[in-house]
């Protein structure tokens, strides 16, 4: 049996890295050229960390709000308004 060629190629990995780069907010703002893979890795880590912080902050604010909110009747209203927008 001849050696099994892996289906993953260098191009695929490079493509993944450029997809990651296109996710990053920095890139979207500056319309960046190709950054080094190492830079993309670093920025990706920072991006994920900032998303975690945002979730934490939003949870804080939702928590304050939920204390005074009637979630049950809110649910229908919320889903409805999402369909509208």
């Amino acid at each position: 049996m001849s050696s099994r060629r892996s289906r993953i190629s260098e191009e695929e990995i490079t493509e993944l890295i450029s997809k990651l780069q296109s996710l990053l907010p920095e890139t979207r703002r500056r319309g960046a050229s190709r950054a080094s893979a190492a830079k993309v890795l670093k920025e990706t880590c920072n991006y994920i960390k900032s998303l975690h912080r945002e979730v934490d902050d939003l949870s804080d604010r939702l928590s304050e709000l939920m204390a005074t909110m009637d979630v049950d009747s809110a649910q229908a209203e919320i889903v409805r308004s999402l369909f509208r927008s």
Partner: protein
Amino acid sequence: MQVPNSFKLALLKQMLLGFQLSAVSSNSMSFHERKNAIKLSADAAMVFARGSTRWTRGLVASLSKNRNNEDLLRGILGKKYERLSLPCCNSWKIPRSRKILKRCLGLCSRRKKATGTQHDVKSSSTLARRLVKKRIQVLKKLLPGGDSMEGFSLLDQTLDYAVSLKAQVDVMRRLLKISKASNLNK
């Protein structure tokens, strides 16, 4: 890269379900209890919307470590809970991909036999190698279930996770905005 609207809708629905199940609007909850319930609901809802993949299974595994979370997890994930709790069978290794990844990231020493000062090239490439290695380690810690991933899957799952996280943030932001706007107070 964006998720489809159906993803966000499913996420929202399950998150609201989680709020109901954990009775977030009850007066008996402390701020922290409420916040944890909200976070847990948001994460479980994200898992539900995404379905089964390595990072979602990793996330369920880490959330399940706390016994108190089990009821809410089951409530939100329903039938999916069992499947997502299965241990990740380590699929066939892709040794070649790890090498390719390392090459892409400039980690392979063999290529660095440059002209010019051997010493200089060696120290800068060693530094670069160490730096990239460090960053991969950081990434593995950030990604749920990342410790068992390498190469292509690590990057692929990272992309998938980041996109889902962004959707989670978007949904929570929207929910906050709408909840404030609709004066549905007790």
